[in-house]
């Protein structure tokens, strides 16, 4: 079921919320089971055949987590964890990568239909198994676990939750009370996300699809229009989805972690990865980058090698402590999105960016200048790198990505001739719309900043620009959000999928 559909907004959400409040009168257990059943219904609405897979995955991982916890301190615990991780990854490989891998080996098979959300709920559960092994997962009840994995606002496309931030919230009695404040705040966050999706992201879809369908025909203007449109579409689509997920959870008295923090305002690529799809970055840091980097750094200490800044600036230190964990993590981050070569190249491209960024910091450790021109220059360079990456990310093949990037460099000509005045007007209007969206991206506060009065996420919020644009429970804001709801609902018409559903 899509967040941006009539059936969700007008039926599923209000009925699930009302049912939750009614069930809570009979106790937390009843309310919890109500949410699990509603979440499975939400999941199965899309393709009922995927429900058994979700249920089997949750049940198997829960049993594994209990076994891992029960065998603490015994060698078999490590085997159980390794087996659990392998089983989860095997499931992902079966649906996401097997057809590509067999195709490369000369054994072509038809690619299976990808169960929606499989990457998200599989990663969430692998993290839980690792935390059980480390003794860090404290809540171990079946219902608590089922809620943690299946709670519908994050089930399909995140934010990727960590058990320690959400399971205690499900255990708290305050979660099961009716809170008008939380419903108001959650609704406001949801509506901001809905507007981002329907009004800002979706209108760009046609330009993007046309550009990537025939990249060899793009000239300079068309290529830049295609690339910038996709970059904006991806941002408003995914951050809009995240806002909607955070808003829905808030209506149920739950706070999610932030997933976006104005990533296109980043002043370095390191900064960008701390602001874009933040919960995926956090996950990769916790379960991939940190273990690799810790292992390498401990080995260096054991061999008597320096690990401080001096040690990091040697060729061996930089290769071991920076390049190795960064390239492995980013390559796998790219492949997490899919089996296409474009995703691997996307990951490696960002690994290269990060390596240069780290080297720049280490070898020219001068504090960055705070003059506005210096800040604008850093933002422009960072965004330029990200834009190139997003072309590779979106393109159906490396050839296609090369065509778009080549056209952006003017290799296909710089002609901006139009067939007639009507086409010229349309192109000018599209360019003006893209410029408007960049003003929103770079000059407007983000959703957390607009909503900071209500503590919208688990993360701290720094004040943004336009302080007057701060939500509060007042008549003008109620009227504005009412108008936003009307506009958002009227724009639903041709409901479109969220881009991250394909991952």
């Amino acid at each position, binding site marked *: 079921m899509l967040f941006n559909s009539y059936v969700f907004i007008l039926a599923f959400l209000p009925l699930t919320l009302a049912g939750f409040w009614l069930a809570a009168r009979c106790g937390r257990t009843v309310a919890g089971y109500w949410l699990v059943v509603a979440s499975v219904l939400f999941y199965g609405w899309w393709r009922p055949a995927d429900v058994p897979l979700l249920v089997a995955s949750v049940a198997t991982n829960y049993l594994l987590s209990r076994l891992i916890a029960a065998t603490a301190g015994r060698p078999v615990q490590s085997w159980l964890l390794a087996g659990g991780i392998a089983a989860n990854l095997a499931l992902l490989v079966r649906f996401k990568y097997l057809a590509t891998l067999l195709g490369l080996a000369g054994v072509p098979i038809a690619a299976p239909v990808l169960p929606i959300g499989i990457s998200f709920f599989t990663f969430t559960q692998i993290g839980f198994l690792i935390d059980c092994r480390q003794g860090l997962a404290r809540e171990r009840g079946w219902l608590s676990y089922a809620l943690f994995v299946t709670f519908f606002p994050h089930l399909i496309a995140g934010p990727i939750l960590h058990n320690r931030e959400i399971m205690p919230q499900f255990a708290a009695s305050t979660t099961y009370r009716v809170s008008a404040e939380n419903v108001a705040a959650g609704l406001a966050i949801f509506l901001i996300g809905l507007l981002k999706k329907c009004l800002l992201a979706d209108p760009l879809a046609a330009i993007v699809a046309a550009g990537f369908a025939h990249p060899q025909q793009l000239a300079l203007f068309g290529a830049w229009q295609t690339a910038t449109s996709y970059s904006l579409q991806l941002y408003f689509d995914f951050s809009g989805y995240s806002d909607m997920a955070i808003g829905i959870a808030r209506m149920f008295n739950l706070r999610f972690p932030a997933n976006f923090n104005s990533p296109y305002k980043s002043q370095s690529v390191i900064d960008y990865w701390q602001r874009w799809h933040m919960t995926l970055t956090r996950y990769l*840091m*916790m379960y991939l980058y*940190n273990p690799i*980097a810790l292992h390498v750094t401990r080995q260096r200490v054991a061999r008597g090698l320096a*690990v401080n800044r001096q*040690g990091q600036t040697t060729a061996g230190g930089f290769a071991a402590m920076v390049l190795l964990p960064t390239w492995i993590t980013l390559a796998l981050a790219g492949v997490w999105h899919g089996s296409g070569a474009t995703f691997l190249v996307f990951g490696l491209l960002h690994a290269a960016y990060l390596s240069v960024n780290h080297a720049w910091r280490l070898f020219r450790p001068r504090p960055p200048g705070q003059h506005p021109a210096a800040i604008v220059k850093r933002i422009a360079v960072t965004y330029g790198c990200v834009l190139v990456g997003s072309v590779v990310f979106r393109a159906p093949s490396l050839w296609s990505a090369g065509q778009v990037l080549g056209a952006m460099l003017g290799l296909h000509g710089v002609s901006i001739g139009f067939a007639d005045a009507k086409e010229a007007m349309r192109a000018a209007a599209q360019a003006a719309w893209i410029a408007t969206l960049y003003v929103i991206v770079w000059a407007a506060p983000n959703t957390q900043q607009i909503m900071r009065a209500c503590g919208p996420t688990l993360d701290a919020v720094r004040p943004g620009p336009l302080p007057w644009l701060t939500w509060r429970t007042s008549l003008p804001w109620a009227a504005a959000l009412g108008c936003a709801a009307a506009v958002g609902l009227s724009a639903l018409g041709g409901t479109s999928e969220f881009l991250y559903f394909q991952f």
Partner: protein
Amino acid sequence: MLSPPLALDQRPVMAELADVFRTVFDDPDIAITEATCADDIPAWDSMTHIALVVEAECRFGITFAAVELDGLRRVGDLARLIEVKRAAA
């Protein structure tokens, strides 16, 4: 009568941690409090975070799990976790 516990900034662990920071950042003038975070020290990135943790492991004779590192946002978080691990050792 028991005296009230010292504030974190006054406990021995903070003085020892300050020395860890000076070693890792190669900066004898660096000063920390329990509220110090990565935003206050520009060179404190993911790579230096790992170096800090491993240096602290050596200095305090403890071991951190990789998944514990994400919760260490401020110096105070690291100092408290060190105290917990030392008490459990």
